């Protein structure tokens, strides 16, 4: 079930109608959450519920045993790691690994056919597998590190692991943040409900009005079905893609946070207007925050972080970014995407120390950062390495451009313009106190949310799956 569907609307109405009846007692609350979440997830394919239950059971018992049997705690952590990373490897990376090995062996003169020997069940990517396995892993790792006590109640654990708002596309909520919240009877006041509604409506607006309306322009560019070319065309495509993926994913996260808030739970912000960042370091502190912090806490810092000097720090940064790329998809283009970011971050560490560069206005840095991000997105979106290189060549080939595509894709250009204006106005609102006062005085939040609600119905794009579901 996706948030932008009529099934979900009915599901959510029914869920919130019955929620007050179940939320007061611990076991009934947890059971209700688990049943609703399994229904939500099973709507795609109920067979993959066994995967969540299976990996969840491994982590639930590993968590208990790590605390109880101190002598073997490392073994149980390894069990949890194998369970989670194993299922991720089988379902997400088996084809990638097999094709890579096949072509590697072929170069060595050995003909193998690993890819055709992968069992059929492993060829299907269960929705959200990367999200819930990471969420589940953080539970056992935190217990192992002594930062969290395991829950003894299996319903409590599964209500954390499978909670439907964030189950399939995040945010990746840490057990230490959510288990405690789930242990209490949630209370919600009208201000929180209003904030929840605002998050849900604005999230839907980002997804349905902005991201979906940009998709035709971007999809036709990458499928090669249109004959447009030239630097201006590809820069527009990449800027549009930057906003499509941002609004698609940020939209999902906002809806997830809004739903949780309306239930009485708090999820941390997952996107904080990343395209207003004046450096890539800042960008990664604002983009997919739950994943960035996950990699920081469970990969980068355990490797040694910045503690082991500049060059080791850079090495760990590269490892983290390459893994982050691989997390997004089983393809070399995603790994290169991670590498481009790692390279840019490396360069940034050096040039950020140059004194005269600090005099450059912040607006220029925001633009430079955005350009770097757009260039990296080419690898993220392209169908192949060859296509990435062709597009990049086109973007930096300073020949005269045909702007006819602006008329052909007039609608997409309008929605792209709206997305940019919204981001810039948020920047203005954040920095100008008189704008904030004006906004509050005339209750502009109510007006904007009402307009967004109308736009969701009247200007919705052609319904698309959330992009991040594939990860």
């Amino acid at each position, binding site marked *: 079930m996706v948030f932008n569907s009529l099934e979900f609307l009915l599901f959510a109405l029914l869920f919130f109608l019955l929620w007050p009846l179940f939320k007061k007692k611990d076991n009934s609350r947890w059971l209700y959450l688990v049943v609703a979440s399994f229904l939500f997830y099973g709507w795609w394919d109920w067979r993959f519920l066994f995967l969540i239950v299976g990996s969840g059971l491994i982590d639930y018992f590993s968590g208990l045993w790590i605390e109880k049997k101190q002598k073997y705690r490392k073994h149980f952590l390894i069990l949890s790691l194998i369970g989670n990373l194993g299922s991720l490897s089988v379902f997400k990376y088996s084809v990638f690994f097999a094709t890579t090995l096949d072509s590697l062996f072929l170069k060595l003169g050995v003909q193998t056919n690993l890819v055709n020997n992968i069992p059929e069940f492993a060829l299907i990517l269960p929705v959200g597998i990367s999200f819930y396995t990471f969420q589940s892993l953080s539970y056992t790792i935190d217990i192992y590190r002594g930062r969290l006590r395991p829950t003894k109640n299996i319903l409590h654990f599964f209500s954390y692991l499978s909670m439907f708002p964030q189950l399939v596309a995040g945010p990746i909520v840490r057990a230490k943040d959510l288990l405690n919240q789930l242990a209490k009877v949630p209370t919600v006041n009208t201000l929180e409900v209003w904030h929840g509604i605002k998050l849900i409506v604005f999230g839907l607006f980002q997804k349905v009005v902005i991201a979906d309306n940009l998709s035709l322009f971007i999809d036709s560019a990458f499928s090669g079905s249109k004959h447009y070319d030239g630097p201006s065309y590809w820069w527009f495509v990449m800027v549009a893609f930057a906003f499509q993926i941002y609004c698609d994913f940020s939209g999902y996260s906002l809806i997830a946070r809004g739903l949780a808030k309306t239930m009485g739970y708090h999820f941390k912000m997952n996107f904080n207007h990343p395209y207003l960042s004046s450096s890539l370091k800042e960008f990664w502190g604002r983009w997919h925050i739950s994943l960035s912090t996950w990699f920081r806490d469970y990969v980068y810092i355990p490797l040694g972080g910045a503690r082991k000097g500049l060059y080791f720090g850079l090495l760990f940064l590269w490892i983290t970014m390459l893994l982050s790329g691989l997390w997004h998809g089983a393809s070399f283009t995603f790994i290169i995407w991670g590498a481009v970011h790692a390279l840019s971050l490396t360069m940034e560490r050096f040039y950020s120390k140059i004194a005269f560069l600090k005099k450059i206005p912040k607006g220029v840095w925001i633009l430079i950062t955005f350009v770097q991000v757009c260039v990296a997105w080419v690898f993220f979106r392209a169908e192949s390495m060859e296509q990435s290189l062709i597009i990049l060549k086109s973007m930096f080939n300073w020949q005269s451009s045909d702007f006819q595509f602006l008329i052909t894709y*007039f*609608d997409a250009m309008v929605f792209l313009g709206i997305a940019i204006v919204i981001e810039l106005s948020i920047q203005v609102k954040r920095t100008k106190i008189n704008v904030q006062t004006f906004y509050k005085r005339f209750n502009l939040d109510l007006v904007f949310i009402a307009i967004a609600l109308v736009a969701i119905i009247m200007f919705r794009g052609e319904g698309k799956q959330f992009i991040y579901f594939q990860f």
Partner: protein
Amino acid sequence: MTAKHKIIFLLPIALVIGIVLKLVLPTPMLNDSYRDYCWVIKTHSTEKFNVLAVGDSRIYKGVNPAFLLNEKTELNAVNLGYSSAGYSSEYLSFVSKRIKDNGKRVVLCGITPYSFTPEALKNEHYHSFYDKNKQEVYKILFLSGYLKNFPRYSPAEIWDYFAEVPVTHLYFHDFKENGWVKSFKIPFDSTAGLIPYRKNFVDNTCDYNAVRDYLSWTEEMANNNITVIGFRPPSTLAMEQLEDSLSGFDYTNFINEFEQKGGVWLTFSLNDYSSYDGSHLHYESANEFTKNLAQKIQQFLK
């Protein structure tokens, strides 16, 4: 204003904005909820018909069932055409299931050279609707009915409307429950389809096994007292020449064999109709063509 007041006022304010916009803005050209509804009805309905028009987009845009039968008849007609449809055994079986069990029965088959190519035989458009699971079909049939009152608006259309810009680019489609799609395009360009059609036949020429299967099906229909009428849907002379030169499809042989198997072949003059892109008929021509077709099939419906 408190949060409680904001929650209370949100829907009324949105409703007022929505109503004002609905009154002020021009009606959108495309209602995609209704479009999906029409395709699903065409594919998943179990209703059976006396007269069925089958084939590719030249058929679903070119044959309007509303003009196939005279008003007083109790017979019924439908258009079961799909984009790039090919006469695969699956598609023919789908058509067979929608023919009435008795009475006067006529199947009108638009025969284009493309409809026997491997790409056409995949019937991707048909499958995109046929393969929908029950849940999706139910959703489209029952919920799209409500959604069709909420069409999607296009900024380009709104801009042109208020700026009073003469429409220079438009591809109009109006979907009908009887399977016909009323269509036209601005600018009118009867050569526009030639380049894409030229590409269509690269490594994709006539599959004679499919032709044989189709002819067997025609014979089977004829043996069951079902009249199968074949014709080449009118397009343009340039298009016909292009298709004849690239497709590997031989109309003369086909017509001979088709008639031997009990089929009836009809021919139409290209001069009587106009195509907006070199392939599909303008809706006025489609109506005209259907009326001519209706006249020619009268004898089989008496």
